[in-house]
């Protein structure tokens, strides 16, 4: 009775329609994987020797030593925290005009291109590379770190802010324009109320990221807790390193929870 209906069914391909392309892509992917994995050289004797260190690291992580290097740790931590806060504040303040300028719907063409290229440069350059340059220019220490993080914040917030402004509800902007408002009034009445909660959220998020980055740029000499971490690792003092890592994780967790809480409160 049911013979009239087919008894087999195959799922039609979802993404790539042509069979030839699918096979070619699969072969290409496998060939790449073979080549890539082949290029990984593993020095097994070194790895086995490293296992003992790995054990010591895990032990250090489980029994962290906060006391021996407490001075380095607390100094580094203080630098990291102050650097994080100041760079986020300054970065956000600078990124607001740049973000507004990079929004197609409110800025004139030439401003748009200038602001977009500032954002592009800031985003394309890795924090570490920027930090290396600022250290070369401004000397070792937290000031170079502060500039690095500020620079990175501008690209991050500027881009997201510009996208938000471009996504705003045109009807509200239209309504304000219809009242004969000036450009500044337009920004103040139509754009700011719509974008403000997002901007606060983004700033808190960036605060979080900046703290994590501040732990890294110390490795290239830009101040912060990363320097202490680098020292303790290069001296194989794994229990101090474990302590520093635990502090970083704890601060990130706290800041994540509190920023989630704050963001809810702002809305």
């Amino acid at each position, binding site marked *: 009775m049911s013979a009239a209906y087919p008894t087999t069914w195959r799922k039609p391909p979802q993404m790539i329609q042509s069979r030839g392309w699918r096979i070619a892509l699969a072969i290409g992917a496998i060939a790449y994987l073979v080549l890539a994995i082949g290029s990984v050289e593993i020095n097994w004797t070194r790895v086995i020797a*490293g296992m003992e260190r790995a054990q010591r690291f895990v032990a250090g992580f489980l029994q962290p030593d906060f006391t021996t290097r407490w001075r380095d740790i607390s100094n580094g931590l203080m630098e990291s925290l102050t650097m994080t806060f100041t760079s986020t504040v300054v970065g956000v303040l600078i990124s607001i005009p740049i973000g507004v300028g990079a929004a197609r719907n409110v800025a004139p063409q030439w401003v748009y291109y200038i602001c977009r290229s500032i954002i592009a440069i800031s985003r394309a350059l890795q924090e570490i*590379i920027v930090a290396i340059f600022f250290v070369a*220019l401004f000397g070792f220490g937290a000031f170079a770190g502060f500039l690095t993080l500020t620079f990175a914040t501008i690209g991050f917030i500027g881009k997201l802010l510009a996208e938000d402004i471009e996504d705003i509800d045109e009807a509200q902007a239209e309504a304000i324009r219809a009242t004969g408002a000036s450009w500044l009034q337009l920004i103040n009445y139509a754009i700011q109320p719509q974008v403000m909660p997002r901007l606060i959220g983004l700033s808190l998020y960036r605060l979080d990221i900046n703290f994590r980055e501040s732990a890294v740029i110390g490795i290239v000499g830009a101040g912060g807790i990363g320097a202490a971490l680098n020292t303790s690792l290069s001296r194989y003092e794994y229990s101090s390193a474990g302590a520093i*890592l635990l502090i970083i994780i704890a601060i990130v*967790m706290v800041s994540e929870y509190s920023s989630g809480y704050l963001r809810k409160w702002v809305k």
Partner: protein
Amino acid sequence: MSIASADPPIWQHRTPRKRLLLWVGWLACVALFVWCWERMTQRTIWAFVWDAPNAAADIGSRAFPPRWSYMERLWGPLWDTINIATLGTLLGIAMAVPLAFLAASNTTPSRWILRPLALFIIVASRSINSLIWALLLVSILGPGILAGILAIALRSIGFIGKLLYEAIEETDISQVEAITATGASQAQILTYGIVPQVLPAFYGISVFRWDINIRESAILGLVGAGGIGAQLNASLNTLAWPQVSLIILVILGTVVVSEWVSAKVRHAVI
């Protein structure tokens, strides 16, 4: 005439109490900022800072033009860099996916033991930058690509795991309910009810992370974890600025290409 003697109501944006609180809040922020600034710049040598424009001009004049002939020695490290990013991302995905299902409140098999553990692993992995992971792994495994791949993988777990478990938690419950009502087993509910819903997010997240990983793997060589960063480090140590500028151009080029690829793929998926 005397009827309107009562004061007309004055429209105010906020109540006085709220305004006061707002002012106090702003003041506290400014005070905190000033204090932080003082602390941070305690050890800054301002002579260096004022001299920075000259230093910048000096480095700039030495760095240009880039030494193009150095390019032939960069192809190998560039290939390594891409491999570190790609293999690291794949390894990270392989570890992050099961973790995400353990961490999502609607798919976790044990709410009080495995879920907090998975969440902790995700937070720990996210808190620690790949450069720090690399530092650690180089000190354990010795320098080389392997340390780089593992560093990228360990950092990717947290990122992919977090975004993926949030996607799992946001799945439409009615689709899951419908599959449950057909008498499907737990594994079937997972593969029919939840996986199709999170698949686009999964592809998007993975490609996005790969794009980030290309950037990060370019600098891992600074701490000895292989890739083009090693050349950057060597050139910086010998103050070979024309080489440095070339390397940075190469890194920028790679980043632009990887961002383009990732945007294309994400566009195709979503």
